[in-house]
């Protein structure tokens, strides 16, 4: 039954506020859980403290300079933002890029997916209180960071793509390829062992099965994306429609039917193995040519857009360029934005102690999401916390 907002809140006997700075949350967002007899009847997530106004900064900048800022939107899925925005400009201006560059971009994206999912798993297991698994995830993640460091020279902001191809420093030579293969083999072994262990562990399963149910209809209705959507039984992945993936690589899309926290965790565990498969294919069949096409001109561009699959779901970039190649009306829509409402819905009906893991299982990453400012002054005031309130919240010890 769908209740109106006021109905739900009237039924609630107690309100549990978490955040914006709270021991259970790594990022500044605020969750209000409306609780009736220890069952969550409604949730409200507020996330407007981290707004940076990136789209507005980019307005009027030369395109080569502006695209690098898209990478600074997020420190977890940094490569895919830059890839997608570069791809959008290349599509709009009709710039051809060498296949070798496409392969290297795909390798970057898949490595990023692996490290994002492993970070998610480490965080989720930490919330569950299973420190051994959490540490294993962080230990598995370190070689991935080293691979990215070897590929590009930075651990977080790689800046692989540039209009026309990839940067020369990110090109994969013979020696690099050998090292990457070696690291990939070790990583695959570790991930396989971990996947066997994590998805069959009775302790973990007993804690995360049957909670945080998000039905297929709700997932579609509230716009869940990426692994959250696929864990609810909808087989939709933007990689199915991205030329770079469909033409060159053979891999499976992981779909689970349950829609619970367990499905969301398991979906990500198996996606890591699929990503390793893609990287191996890309390294094996890497075409031998120049990774950069420098014969292009930047001029006026009509509205252009591009979609791609980030670790958390669909990402969309669009803009136009004026005569001198400056950005006009940049739009960047990121996946966590729509996953927020899915998070809110999946909490309803569960025990209040499960809320933290349910929200974490939807993989919130709010750096890209803070993109709205509330115009209404009166409403705005409601959300700003007094210093006393912040102090009281932050003093609360980790449960």
């Amino acid at each position, binding site marked *: 039954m769908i209740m109106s907002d006021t109905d739900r809140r009237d039924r609630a006997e107690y309100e549990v506020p978490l955040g*914006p*700075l*709270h*021991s259970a949350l*790594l*990022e*500044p967002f605020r969750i209000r859980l409306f609780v009736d007899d220890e069952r969550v009847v409604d949730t409200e997530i507020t996330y*407007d*403290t*981290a*707004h*940076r*106004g*990136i789209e*507005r*900064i*980019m*307005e*009027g*900048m*030369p395109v080569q*300079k*502006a695209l*690098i*800022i898209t990478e*600074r*939107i*997020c*420190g*977890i899925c*940094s490569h895919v933002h830059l890839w997608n925005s570069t791809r959008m400009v290349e599509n709009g201006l009709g710039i051809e890029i060498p296949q070798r560059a496409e392969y290297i971009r795909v390798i970057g994206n898949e490595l990023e997916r692996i490290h994002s999912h492993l*970070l998610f798993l480490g965080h989720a297991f930490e919330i569950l209180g299973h420190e051994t698994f959490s*540490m294993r995830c*962080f*230990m598995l*993640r*370190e070689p991935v960071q080293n691979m990215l460091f070897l590929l590009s020279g*930075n*651990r*977080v*902001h790689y800046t692989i793509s540039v209009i026309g191809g990839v940067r020369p420093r990110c090109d994969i030579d013979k020696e690099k390829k050998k090292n990457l293969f070696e690291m990939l083999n070790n990583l695959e072994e570790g991930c396989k062992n971990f996947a066997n262990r994590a998805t069959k562990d009775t302790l973990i399963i007993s804690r995360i099965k049957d909670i945080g149910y998000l039905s297929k209809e709700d997932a579609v209705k509230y716009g869940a994306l990426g692994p959250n959507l696929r864990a609810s039984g909808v087989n939709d992945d933007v990689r199915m429609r991205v030329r770079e993936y469909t033409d060159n690589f053979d891999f499976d899309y992981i779909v689970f039917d349950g829609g619970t926290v367990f499905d969301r965790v398991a979906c990500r565990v198996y996606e890591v193995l699929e990503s390793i498969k893609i990287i191996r294919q890309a390294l094996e069949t890497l075409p031998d040519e120049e990774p950069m096409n420098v014969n292009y001109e930047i001029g006026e561009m009509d509205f252009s857009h591009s979609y791609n699959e980030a670790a958390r779901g669909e990402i969309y970039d669009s803009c136009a360029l004026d005569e001198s190649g*400056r*950005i006009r009306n940049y739009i960047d829509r990121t996946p966590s934005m729509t996953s927020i409402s899915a998070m809110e819905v999946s909490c309803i009906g569960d025990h209040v102690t499960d809320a933290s893991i349910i929200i974490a299982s939807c993989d919130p*990453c709010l*750096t890209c999401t*803070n993109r709205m*400012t509330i115009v209404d002054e009166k409403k705005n005031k409601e959300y*700003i*916390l007094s*210093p006393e309130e*912040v*102090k009281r919240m*932050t*003093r609360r*010890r*980790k449960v």
Partner: protein
Amino acid sequence: MLKQVSRKNAVHIMLFYAVGCNGCDIEIVNAAFSPFYDLEQYKVILTWNPREADILAVTGAVSKKIAPALKAVYEAIPEPKLVAAVGSCAINGGPFCNLGGDLGSSDQLLGGVSKVIPVDANIPGCPPRPEDIIQAVASVIPLLADKE
């Protein structure tokens, strides 16, 4: 004397996430918490409670909205305390304050951490590598121990 010895043996870092991109954030957690870099073996412990913190590590530029919260957290930390600005955004606002096109920098941001609270250590990098963070922490601990 006893205070200084005991303080040296249990340094608590509190991570404050201002308006960053998660990059520095994860590198700090990586340096302190993950088994690979493991700062905890040197008795440097990550905490989320300002009452027991000694070092406040701030990542990201400071927005107008989060500034009061940052001030409140800073005031809640007992003396002696140190503040470390981690990453180029925390030092001077990074690309969001200094790369503005025709319209200048972002309206939402104040700039670096030093505009709100006094900063004792800057750790540059985008993001700084865990080794840099460990080195910075090691060089900051004597400052903390000398304070009365």
